[in-house]
């Protein structure tokens, strides 16, 4: 089996669900999301021809996937393309007095908020929610782990507030 084939099979087995969630974080439309996920798979497979073990497979996969997704998003014309900064998220009024938020609506809300984050914030937050620690995220992103930790702390607070703000059931 060719090197890129074997590595691709391994990557999909280990990171398949994470890649699908990654595509969801960039694209709300289901059809375009499917296209994006295919583009990510193609980019991964092509990239594995030059995989040289200089970094872990995980770092490689996430770099290719996120970089490809960002290119895709920038290449398509978006009618309502705008990003929401941290200050805007925090300023949103809290309409909910109930701590329990309907799970599916909360997931939708989280997804919508993530999709509106500026690119780098979105990438860091998605990697964090996939369970990567600040050091691993820093390696993928090319930032210091201190900077990553600070960003995650601020973004988490803002996203939690945003998720709880909208759509709670009594």
């Amino acid at each position, binding site marked *: 089996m060719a090197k890129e*084939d074997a590595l*691709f*099979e391994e990557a*999909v087995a280990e990171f*398949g*669900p994470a890649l*699908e*969630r990654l595509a*969801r974080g960039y694209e709300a439309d289901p059809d375009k999301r499917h296209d994006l996920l*295919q*583009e990510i*798979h*193609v*980019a991964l*497979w*092509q*990239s594995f*021809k*030059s*995989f040289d073990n200089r970094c872990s497979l995980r770092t*490689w996969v996430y*770099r*290719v996937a*996120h*970089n*490809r997704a*960002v*290119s895709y998003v*920038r290449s398509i014309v978006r009618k309502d393309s705008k990003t929401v900064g941290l200050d805007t998220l925090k300023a949103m009024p809290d309409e909910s007095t*109930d*701590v*329990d938020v309907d*799970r599916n609506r*909360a*997931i939708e809300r*989280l*997804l919508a908020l993530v999709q509106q984050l500026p*690119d*780098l914030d979105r*990438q860091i937050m*998605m990697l*964090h*929610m*996939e*369970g990567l620690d600040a050091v691993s995220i820093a*390696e*993928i*992103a*090319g*930032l*210091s782990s*201190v*900077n990553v930790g600070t960003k995650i702390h601020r973004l*988490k*607070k803002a*996203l*939690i507030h945003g*998720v709880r703000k909208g759509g709670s059931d009594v």
Partner: protein
Amino acid sequence: MSEKPPMNNPEDELAGLWRDQKLEGNKVALEAIRKKTGKFERAIRNRNLMEYVAAAVVVAGFGRTILHAENNFVRAGSVLVVAAAIYIVYALHTRGSSRHLPGDAARMTLVQFHRSSLERQRNLLEDIWRWYILPFVPGLLLNMVGFAVRDGALLNPDRTPAQARHGLNIATFTLFMFGFFFLVAALNKRAARRLQRKINELDAEERQ
């Protein structure tokens, strides 16, 4: 008073929601990926082909004018426009595609990739005047002069008032045309400066 249930640990809440998404979980087939790769590469080749076709249309159109030009100004102007079209195609070809190569996306960190993309966009916007507009200016200018000469508005000692007005119209049109080019270049420069600010912000992020 009703008791509120205990708050979820915010540390886990987001990650839990994120990973609880219902996924399609479709199996990815290698053969489908190979086919898709071929399709993408064909799409890129077709896009390049469209650029060559556009240039060929310009060459054909102005090439015809060279053969049937009413005077040497129009002929010279058309030669320059054809040369500009050929030059732009050559420049596009040698400067390469604007897309990253597949391996780049893995060798670059996310910040490096962001910066590289922003720099490429910035350079394109800064260079658009020099690479895509300026080459056509001499030829178009000569064509305008040629039309004015053809219609008796220029280099005509027996010019009538009507011809003079026509010459003024040609001059006005030429001014508007170059004014439009200048506006396009200025707007692109402004967009390039905005991109430079984003690049500076990324640099600052990296230094933290």
